[in-house]
């Protein structure tokens, strides 16, 4: 029995990644990390800024996401995200740019606690990458 299932990552511009040989995906869900194996129960969840780890027979890949929604159903995992970066060939300048914009927004006074939490999270994750 194969332990593999299919994964599709789409962002608004295009279908970012589509493969069907993943064995496990770890996503930074809103209330903590979730690892998804084959035959997981159908789930819909939110992502906070963080790292997506994709495990397959050929190895492990990591991506940074700003936000997102995941849907897992019938051994199909879909991840919708507005911003995703491959950590393998990451653009340092781009990272700094995102971090700066997050910090700028954080300095504004009229943001809600929830936004503040997400922005803090974003900055923290970005720091950990560098």
């Amino acid at each position, binding site marked *: 029995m194969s332990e593999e299932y299919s994964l*599709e990552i789409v962002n608004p511009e295009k279908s970012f990644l589509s493969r069907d040989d993943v064995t496990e995906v770890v996503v930074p869900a809103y209330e903590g990390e979730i690892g998804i194996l084959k035959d997981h*129960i*159908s*789930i*819909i969840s939110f992502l906070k800024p963080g790292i997506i780890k994709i495990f397959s027979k050929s190895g492990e890949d990591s991506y940074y996401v700003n936000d997102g929604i995941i*849907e897992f159903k019938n051994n199909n995992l879909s991840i*919708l995200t507005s911003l995703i970066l491959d950590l393998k060939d990451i653009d340092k300048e781009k990272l700094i740019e995102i971090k700066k914009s997050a910090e700028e927004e954080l300095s504004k006074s009229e943001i809600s606690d929830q936004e503040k939490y997400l922005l803090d999270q974003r900055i923290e994750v970005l720091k950990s990458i560098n």
Partner: protein
Amino acid sequence: MASLDDLKKRISSVKSTQKITKAMKMVAAAKLRRAQESAEKGRPYSEKMNNIILNLSNGISDIENAPKLLSGTGEDKVHLCVVMTSDRGLCGGFNTNIIKKAKIFFQKILDEGKTLKIITVGSKGYDQLKRVYGDNIIERISFKDSKNVNYFDADKVGKIVIEKFEKKEFDVCTIFYNQFKNVITQIPQEQQIIPLNTSEKAENSSEDNYEFEPEEDEILSNLLPKNISTQIFKAMLENSASEQGSRMSAMDNATRNAGEMVDKLTIEYNRSRQAAITKELIEIISGAESL
């Protein structure tokens, strides 16, 4: 009859216009390919998003307490219309078609005694609407500086719409844009985005019981604003592909018309030149005869 010199000038001016329209057509064709590609690539995202929302909203048991973005405010007194047009002209009937569609809708709303508010995206729409509906336009947005359609621009529009909704400035929101079918055909569309039209059933919607994390309500209230931006982004992508397509065929026609005009003018030019030569010959011959 125009003098030879005048004709010559006209021919050269038409020819240079033809050169410009030809160049614009080529540019539009190149841009069209890119716009079309990104419109097609953008589709999975909005489709998936739509599916998830439909699945979610089907699962919601308590309609009364559903987020307002989904169920609406319960009234439909104030309509907000987002009219999406291009920032540049010379693209045939592209803008006019959207405006025409929107105007019919506006009239219907006003006839029913409801309040109308308009947001224009793209400067051409504002130009065409300001005379009649100037007082109804509450916001005008233009993305002249962005080279390509990108999600962040769409997000900006989405945030404005949501902000206004939360301030209870309107009850129903409709967007107008051109859907790209092919180079010759673009279909003006009206699409209601608030409250969301959930009457259509989700594709392969099953009786699946999803596990939600966090709770359904929270997911929905987070997802719906995103969906607004996504729908607007989709509309912008379709619009930009349509704009380039429309411009391409308009410029193709213009080039062809200019060619015909050059042909006509050339014939006229040759005729009058021949007439002048004949006249001169007659003058010489009759002068010689009289001697």
